[in-house]
């Protein structure tokens, strides 16, 4: 099955983890975030091309030497990469074992999609927005019950040192106190790695 892409971005240094990383960004996202920097990932004209797992592997294989030498690899983003969990899992089964695989996800997807890629992913970067359901709904237009359930599943099934949680301060939507509340809730779930930052608006 061919998955829709918006970009493949090579030679990302120290942005998505250790080593040289290629970002594979998928088209499509279940959320409608108010400050999304890439609303095109939800629009037909944002589609760049479609590739299946083998084609994707061929496209990124050109940097195998760099990945192996630096402990780098591929990070899947988007859009929401877990909407393409089957392609990602197949890609991971095909790719050289030395590659480091990361995924940047909102977790706003059915749990089976998360479970499908979990055996292959070395690093999860979770963009939770805010744990407060009302704030989340206002900011994304969606309910966060799936996100919360998936975080619980991750906490139970994955070594938490593989999970980094992004906690943004979102102007007009949450406050530093909200961010602190989200963090406490996540710490109670057992997560320890957080990336706290402010959204910078033009």
């Amino acid at each position, binding site marked *: 099955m061919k998955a829709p*892409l*918006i*970009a*493949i*971005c*090579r*030679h*990302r*240094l*120290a*942005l*998505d983890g*250790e*080593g*040289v990383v290629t*970002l594979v*960004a998928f088209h499509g996202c279940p959320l409608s975030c108010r400050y*999304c*920097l*890439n609303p*095109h*990932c939800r629009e037909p004209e944002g589609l*760049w*091309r479609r590739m299946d797992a083998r084609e994707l592997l061929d*496209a990124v294989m*050109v940097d*195998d*030497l*760099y990945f*192996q*030498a*630096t*402990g780098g690899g591929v990070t899947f*983003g*988007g*859009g929401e990469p877990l909407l393409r969990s089957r392609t990602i899992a197949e890609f991971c089964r095909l790719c050289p074992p*030395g590659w480091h695989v990361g995924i*940047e996800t909102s977790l706003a997807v059915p749990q089976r999609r998360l479970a499908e890629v979990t055996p292959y992913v070395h690093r999860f*970067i979770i*963009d939770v927005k805010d744990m407060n359901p009302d704030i989340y709904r206002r900011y994304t237009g969606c309910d966060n019950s799936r996100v919360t359930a998936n975080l619980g599943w991750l906490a139970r099934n994955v070594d938490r040192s593989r999970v980094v949680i*992004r906690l943004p301060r979102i102007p007009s939507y949450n406050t530093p106190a909200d961010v602190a509340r989200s963090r406490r809730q996540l710490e109670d779930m057992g997560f320890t790695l957080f*990336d706290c*930052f*402010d959204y*910078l*608006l*033009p």
Partner: protein
Amino acid sequence: MNKGKTICGVLKTIRQQVADANEISYKPAECHHRGECAGTCPACEAEVKYINQQLDLRRQLGKAVVIAGISAGLLSAPAFAAGQKPVKPVPKAKSSVKAAEREKDALVIGSTGAAPAPYQVTPQKMDTTKVFGVVEQMPSFPGGDAALMEFIKKEMVYPAEAKRKGVEGRVIVEFVVERNGRITSAKVVKSIDPLLDREALRIVRKMPRWNPGRQAGQTYRVKYIIPITFRL
């Protein structure tokens, strides 16, 4: 040095390290390209191909080949203290991702004017009022990283009160490099102490105009982050 040239330099070092570890005769070709660079080009890709061929040859001869982790640590960020080489400023990862996606700068390689690389896409016209995380040619301090480091070192006035209290550490400052190179929206994103934060912001606001970020020749507003280390 623009971002592409920096990437090119890192990749060249990796190639050299892999070649040396496997006793492959390799001397990177001197690059005479001036101007924008996407980090790799057909000449660089040909060097990778050559090293891969040499590695395959060694495997066929039953020789041990060493690649894994040869350059591990090459990209670890060192501390940015006065008198040390600064950490390459890195924008927020998520923003970078999104900006890169928006720009559709997928696999944009071969900017030396040679034949287009596979999957190269024509950059779309982007909104010049928006702030981006990553563009082809990132903004740069006039004179490069070394000059930036020198500027910070020269401008830094360690707050007396902080000195007395023995406060030291690294303040991370985020700002926007406008299309005309001016620095705006400077703010501390990782604080150490209000006194040091204030001094870090003062230094950033005093910086001269930067070379603005560019994509396909067009200037854009770009977010940037630098660490400023206070050490007693």
